[in-house]
């Protein structure tokens, strides 16, 4: 299904705010061709509206085994946002449309230098946070998912490689939905161990990461 006009307009408006160059890596798969084509089509809209600042580096899963291993790719298509050390900070296992547009662009802006709202406080607690992967399980129609993606993405960007955020649309990945027995969104899975549901505040998330109670 082609992307709705309203989302195309939102993408163009949001990505126009980007003011520094950035490269995204995308891994596509012939086994998941329809989703891969959809992902590329949407990223093309982003790229064309970015005044040349956004570059998309496409890699095919089947012909890049070294990169698959390096970036620990398990599902494709997937978009990777990496830092200067080429560490994966944010993965999008979902096409960045609808409610994902704003946090996606916000993450790109912070990746390219826009100050991170949570960074100062997160840095104060950096030593108390262990390497973490947060899976943000969302759907397009979930009202609060956009805010959760934004918070988890900003945390990942602030934690300089210690935290990776995976954004996963569970309707596109029913296997993942079943794996974690998801019956509500947003759901956060922290290090395959802890499950948080509903709208978590940034403060609550920080306390979870440093294993304290607020």
């Amino acid at each position, binding site marked *: 299904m082609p992307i709705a006009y*309203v989302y195309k307009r939102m993408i163009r*408006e949001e990505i126009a*705010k980007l003011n520094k160059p950035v490269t995204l890596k995308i891994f596509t798969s012939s086994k998941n061709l329809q989703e891969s084509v959809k992902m590329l089509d949407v990223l093309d809209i982003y790229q064309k509206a970015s005044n040349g600042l956004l570059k998309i580096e496409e890699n095919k899963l089947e012909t890049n085994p070294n990169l698959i291993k390096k970036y620990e790719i398990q599902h494709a298509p997937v978009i990777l946002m990496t830092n200067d050390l080429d560490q994966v900070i944010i993965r999008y296992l979902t096409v960045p449309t609808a*409610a994902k547009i*704003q946090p996606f*662009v*916000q993450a790109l*802006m912070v990746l390219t230098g*826009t*100050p*991170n*709202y*949570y960074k*100062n*406080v997160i840095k104060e607690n950096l030593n108390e946070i262990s390497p973490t992967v947060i899976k943000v399980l969302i*759907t397009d*129609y*979930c*009202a*609060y998912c*956009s*805010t959760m993606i*934004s*918070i988890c993405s900003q945390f990942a960007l602030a934690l300089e490689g210690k935290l990776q955020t995976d954004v996963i649309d569970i*309707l596109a990945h029913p296997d993942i939905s079943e794996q974690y*027995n*998801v*019956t*509500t*969104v947003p*759901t956060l899975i922290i290090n395959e161990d802890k*499950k948080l*549901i*509903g*709208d978590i*505040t*940034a*403060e609550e998330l*920080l306390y979870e990461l440093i294993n304290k109670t607020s």
Partner: protein
Amino acid sequence: MYNIDMEDIDPEKTYDLIVLGGGPTAIGSAIYAARFALDVLVIGKIFGGLIATTHLVENYPGITSTSGQGFMEMFKEHMNSLQIPYITDEIRSIEQRSDHFVLHSFFQKFKAKSVVIATGSERKKLGVPGEEEFAGRGVSYCATCDGPFYKDKTVCVIGGSDSAAKEALFLSQSVKKVYIIYRGEEIRAEPINKKRVEENQKIEIIYKTKITEIKGDNTVKSVIFDSGKEFEIDGVFIEVGSKPNSDIGKHIGIRTNKKDEIIINRKSETNILGIFAAGDVADAPFKQAITGVAEGVIAAYSAFDYIKEMNIEH
């Protein structure tokens, strides 16, 4: 959302107005504040508020029908067109100084000459055993968020309000059966929604019944009625009203009523000069998006007036 440039967040900067909240009341207030050329900032815990979780908005005059998310998208677009900055955060306390307020979140500190509290309300819990245990595993407070996980299953909606009726109607689109379980004798929905519920073959109302326990194993399997009967069910959607998020005001001495609603006058003023309130957090007798937005707009105008007076005095 208008991305605020962090360089703009100067801890020493004093905004004309900071609006607290992420729903239509807050955004509507901010839009008018911006049109009054006030330097305004919006700080909200979750953009969209409760209405963003509503399946259909059909009672906002001028809009025939739209989803809750679609409704808030319009507010977002209007806000962005005026480049009103919005921050996702939660203000924990407000301090009053001689000519401004200091607002503290966990992450930042802000200053403003005036404040509008439009923090809305949150859904009440049922308060029965099993409710917390099964939260996210069969117990839900948001049909639009979680309804699709119950395709072809049997669910119940606890409550008799218009919101409960609308949740049941939404759920009926995908589930096998919806039971509305209500302690009263007649549901209190808007007549138009009550009629829709009564005509819907998938919806059955169980009156004069309360839930005393929610049971299950990995997920919800049944509920216990106050009659003692165990009733098999796959999902429980709780819609038993809401309580105002007024703690932020109470801490600074803002007067509230017995229902913890912030007391305001017709200018949306609270008992503290320079602090205004609007929407679900305030004490209106009939709360709707349109009435909340109206109060928020009046609050913005009152803040504009207040700041004008302050500037004249200085």
